[in-house]
């Protein structure tokens, strides 16, 4: 009798768990023993990429830290939809202070744990792109420079979503936001220099930097679990679509995130002490247009006429990422 190798295409990145997967290949979210750090009942939008990401990140962090975790959260969607007094969705020790100080608050918590000889307690700080790349940037850099024992996770939905989708320094070129409307000769966000906080984190030579996406939840969990047990400053930048702000369908969140990865617009990589140590290969490269077309924030690039020039410039950004991080290999 010959053996037929059956390839399970549905395992790996695409599957959280099912009965075909061994328990070690299942995501933490599939476990009934998961911490359920971000409990249901919160007020996030339908299809919120950030809620999805945070749920995965926190439960993975709780598992890897054996439940000894304290979380500092910046102001933003995540904090607002999860803690409407008198209720809270958080089942971890959690604190929210201000918009721009989550990294510093986390530094303080870490210092307190050190002073009390509780080095077993891990500290996780989290915020959106607004609180990380803009208003929290100085505190973030300070935390990196001091190598404070904090894992900072940025949920990047590429705009100040909580306040109505205004442009941040993470907003991609040409995207429509409330403060970069699709009007005039240069509709949407201008083509600026961009601001890669993961690369800036690498420039601080901190122990661990990674990008991740809700497109690849296993990868996201793995990175969090790897990072949580390390010491020193660590940074994970998670790409999280926002259906409301991006104008994508609520059921397309993971699909859109996947297109960002597969077009090269959002490269997945890891780095340690300033050197890239690995990346996720793009299995099936897709043109940037496929990604853009699903989002109304880029609708003006296609209607009334195709903005060939701008689409090409966005493609060039993706091409550069692919080259820089060698994503096809």
């Amino acid at each position: 009798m010959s053996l037929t190798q059956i390839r399970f295409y549905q395992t790996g990145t695409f599957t959280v768990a099912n009965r075909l997967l061994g328990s070690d290949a299942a995501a933490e979210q599939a476990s009934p023993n998961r911490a359920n750090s971000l409990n249901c009942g919160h007020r996030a939008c339908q299809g919120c990429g950030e809620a999805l990401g945070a749920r995965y990140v926190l439960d993975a962090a709780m598992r890897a830290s054996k439940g000894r975790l304290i979380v500092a959260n910046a102001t933003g969607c995540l904090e607002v939809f999860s803690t409407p007094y008198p209720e809270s969705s958080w089942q971890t020790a959690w604190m929210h202070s201000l918009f721009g100080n989550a990294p510093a608050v986390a530094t303080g918590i870490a210092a307190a744990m050190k002073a009390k000889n509780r080095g077993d307690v891990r500290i996780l700080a989290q915020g959106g792109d607004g609180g990380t790349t803009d208003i929290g940037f100085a505190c973030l850099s300070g935390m990196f420079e001091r190598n404070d024992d904090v894992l900072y996770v940025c949920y990047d939905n590429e705009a100040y979503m909580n306040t109505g989708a205004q442009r941040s320094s993470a907003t991609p070129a040409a995207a429509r936001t409330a403060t970069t409307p699709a009007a005039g000769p240069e509709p949407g966000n201008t083509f600026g220099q961009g601001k890669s906080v993961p690369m800036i984190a690498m420039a601080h030579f901190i122990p661990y930097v990674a990008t991740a996406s809700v497109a690849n939840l296993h990868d996201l969990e793995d990175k969090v679990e790897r990072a949580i047990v390390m010491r020193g400053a660590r940074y994970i930048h998670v790409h999280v679509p926002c259906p409301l702000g991006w104008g994508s369908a609520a059921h397309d969140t993971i699909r859109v995130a996947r297109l960002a990865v597969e077009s090269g617009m959002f490269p997945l990589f890891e780095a340690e002490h300033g050197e890239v140590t690995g990346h996720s290969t793009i299995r099936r490269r897709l043109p940037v247009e496929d990604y853009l077309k699903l989002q109304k924030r880029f609708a003006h690039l296609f209607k009334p006429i195709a903005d060939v020039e701008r689409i090409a410039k966005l493609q060039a950004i993706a091409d550069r990422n692919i080259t820089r991080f060698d994503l096809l290999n």
Partner: protein
Amino acid sequence: MFQQIEGSRAVAESVALCRPEVVCAYPITPQTHIVEGLGEMVKSGRLKGCEFINVESEFAALSVAIGASAAGARSYTATASQGLLYMTEAVYNASGLGLPIVMTIGNRAIGAPINIWNDHSDSMSVRDSGWLQFHAETNQEAADLHIQAFRLAEELSLPVMVCMDGFILTHAYERVDVPTQEQVDAFLPPFVPRQVLDPAAPLSIGSMVGPDAFMEVRYLAHQKQFLALARIPEVAKHFARVFGRESGGLARGYRTEDAEILVVALGSVNGTIQEVVDEMRADGIAIGSVSLCSYRPFPVDLMRQMLGHARHVVVVEKCLAPGQGGILSMEIQSALAGLVPNVSTLIAGLGGRIITRRSLRAAFEHARDGLLPPLTFLDLNEGPIAREPELQMEPVCL
């Protein structure tokens, strides 16, 4: 033990005796010597069990203290002037979250124009932030107030700022009795937080409060100030028992009993005022002074008690509400409404302008003669004023 040391050093020694667990440092004149002193103590091992963190801004300094305090660590930082403004968002956050952080303010003017010298505009800018706010008259009191501050802060779950005049106190060498560790340990128990970030007992701190509950939260903060008002004298009495000297409390009177003129002020200028009081008393003038230590909470009833019998109250202010007048004055006037016929404001010492006995005496004599206007700027230089004719509305110079 008595030592002849710089005011900043006295504060650093006292704070160190309080066994802080997290100290954040960001330099700004004139407080820098305090955090440098603490840093040296941590680095040399003299101060154990303390994490000393050099942060990237004042906003970060208080934010780090916020995180540390919420995680149950006794936390401290110091700032002044521009630094206090830069961290103002965090100042309100700390009191809103009920975190017992103690912070020194080395009182300094706020720019523009940039000015590194002493006045009270910085601590005045956050008077409504919900922090307790004490003003030290001497370096001894500055040191002592920090010890009392940690005790009050942790008891009330409220942050406390201890204000000391920049340069005049921070950089002055004076005799200070630095307490022993035994004395401080007897007075200040370990920090037991009212609520704390603990993975073993998780909770959420800093949730969003809507219109349905915000008023009640603020009302309770308001009431908390009255609780503080009751506790401050009690803690000061307890301090006196343990350390053997009077320090802090709500306010101190000097020769007020039969005074017809009473002077009120915050901070170190009270020393000079008392010298003037003695001189004038020697000339038979019934004058006295009140050194207000607790500016927040503001002791309305006590002010009425101490000042109510005067014919004329003069408030010496190191701050200004442009277009309005004195800030402390407004509160004193409000407290004394219906009691004292004349309350005058003497704006003095802004931006470090020296306040002399001579000038104060002249002003107080004007008060005695009924010639002191409601608002006066002490020792104003005529020259620059004369060059701005459209800004000369009425005589404000003495």
